[in-house]
């Protein structure tokens, strides 16, 4: 909670829950995100990160609880014009060229300004590949184009679902430089990842497991709470502490099953 700050939160969630059949993918998450900061959602695959993002973007309707984004309760179509969303899949058209993809998403966001498109493509270093068909791009280039398509409308709030998966270390550094620059310009960035060493680049982390927030704070704070030297260890230790309480009542998993807690 960032109670006491004088800036209105960009994202506010209260007791968000999303249930699919017997499974609660998001199980009572509350959060406040303030402008100009990078937030990291950290957790293993299947922990509920993507569902949380989809709830915040308004692509899913919560079973209970509320999500307010840029002052509006989601889902709300109009707000989407100010949000950027880079999906886990590339989500770009393989049969279009680089610039056709960027122009297409710009049109969807209602952007007519061509310079914004150029800027986004230059930002991801695809400015010289306008007419290259996506089919001929490398995996890393596709990831970059995917990011550019989430930036064409200069969003104030950016959701990036595992943006660096399949991206080589050098490009990862470039990506994080972009994110930091955007945040410095006042944008709020929410990055999900299951790569722990990336997490330290975020201003604030939320460790997520089984749809719940396990811990939150800066990387240093979390390490301190857990009493470990690295985030990975912190995560495992915190997950170990949380597991019996979280697992025991609803599921019939054996009490010593640590696998179930971590995966």
């Amino acid at each position, binding site marked *: 909670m960032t109670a006491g700050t004088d800036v209105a939160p960009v994202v506010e969630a209260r007791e968000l829950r999303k249930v699919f059949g017997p499974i609660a993918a998001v199980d009572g998450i509350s959060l406040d995100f303030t402008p100009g900061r990078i937030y990291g959602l950290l957790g293993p695959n299947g922990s509920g990160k993507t569902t949380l993002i989809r709830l915040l973007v308004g692509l899913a309707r919560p079973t209970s609880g509320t999500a307010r984004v840029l002052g509006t309760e989601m889902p709300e179509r109009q707000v989407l014009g100010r*949000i950027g969303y880079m999906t886990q899949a590339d989500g770009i058209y393989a049969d279009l060229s680089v610039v056709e993809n960027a122009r297409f*998403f710009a049109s969807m966001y*209602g952007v007519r300004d061509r310079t914004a498109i150029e800027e986004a493509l230059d930002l991801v270093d695809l400015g010289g590949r306008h007419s290259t068909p996506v089919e001929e791009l490398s995996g890393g280039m596709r990831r970059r184009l995917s990011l550019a*398509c989430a930036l064409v409308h200069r969003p104030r709030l950016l959701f990036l679902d595992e943006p660096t998966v399949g991206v080589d270390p050098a490009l990862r550094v470039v990506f994080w430089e972009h994110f930091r620059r955007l945040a410095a310009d006042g944008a709020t960035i929410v990055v999900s990842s299951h790569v722990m060493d990336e997490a330290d680049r975020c201003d604030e982390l939320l460790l997520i497991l089984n749809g719940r927030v396990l811990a939150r704070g800066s990387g240093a704070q979390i390490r301190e709470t857990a009493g470990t030297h690295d985030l990975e260890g912190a995560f495992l230790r915190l997950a170990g502490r949380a597991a019996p309480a979280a697992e025991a009542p609803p599921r019939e998993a054996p009490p010593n099953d640590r696998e179930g807690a971590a995966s």
Partner: protein
Amino acid sequence: MNVRRVAAIARRIANGFKRDHRSLGLLFGAPVLVLLLLGWVIRGQSSPATRIAVVNEAGPLGAVIVTRIVDAARTGGLQVVDIGASVDSARAALADDRIDVALTVEPPGTPGSTGGPVIELMTPGVISTDDSLHVAAVQRALADAVAGTGAPAVVHRVLYGSPDPDVLDSFAPALIGFFGFFFVFVLTGVSFLRERVGGTLERLLATPVRRSEIVAGYSLGFGLFATLQVVVILMVAFGSLRVPAIGPLPEFSAGLGIANAGSPALTFLIVFLLAIGAVNLGILLSTFARTELQVIQFIPIVIVPQALLGGVFWSISSLPDPLQPIARVLPLTYAIDGLRNVLIRGEGLASQTLQVDLLVLLLVAVVLIVLGAATIRREVA
């Protein structure tokens, strides 16, 4: 509805086609190929002279009839083969493919007789269409033989279309409708499936785009290509450009030169409405497929029954009674009927049956738009 977004989605589809030459080939090349092939098969059907043998089993009276038949057959252009005078030798000749039809003059009193002698025609019965052609040739020859004898002559005229009966005349409108539906359905189904599976739909829905804009953009994009397809098909079906003989190739007509009475604008209207229905059916059914192959698997369910019942091959009224109501709810039925009304009968908007056709197509399109749009959900419940 934001026109720019609709246009951008339609342009996206067009840009995709630009690089997807195979789909372009499917859309434009395949119908032309099929139409030309069909035209060639039907028009160029070699009808070799019918070979007959005549056997007399009815004594002296029969002999007179046999002479009359042989004379008539010769003047009628039939080939009379001498195979001996017994029924057995005629059967053997049929079996060996030396003759196509064996005529036997049976004495009065044989089954089927109305008092006089009976002329029995026997054909191999292997390929019924061939048999019918030969029997028809025999009947024509015999009718010609009696033409001058004071018996009433039968002359066949037609109200619509060309006086020379040509199966292509009724096939062309049916094929235009069929292709318009088939290819647009398959291409949209696959295209929208890719949107769903490839994550672009998820991403699209994270923009302020409206569902109606997606549906309109798709309808416009694919509707445009369906209309272009019709232009090409119409040029091939109704055009008649003679291409002179080159080398070993005989002279042929590029374009089938089918008699056409219709208004192009109404033709487009029908195909456009049908295509919009097909686009949204593709969007709808792409929900129930996970792979492109599964989209193709819809063809036997969605396309083939429409081809069988919709009037491509048989008219609705000739279908078995229980199938007729089914045929009457299929969009292709109304498209084909509408296209026949326009192209063969030359009907205009004043025609009531055409009004019904257009109305039903519009209704089907609207229903499918609503159903298709319902499958594009921004918030998953």
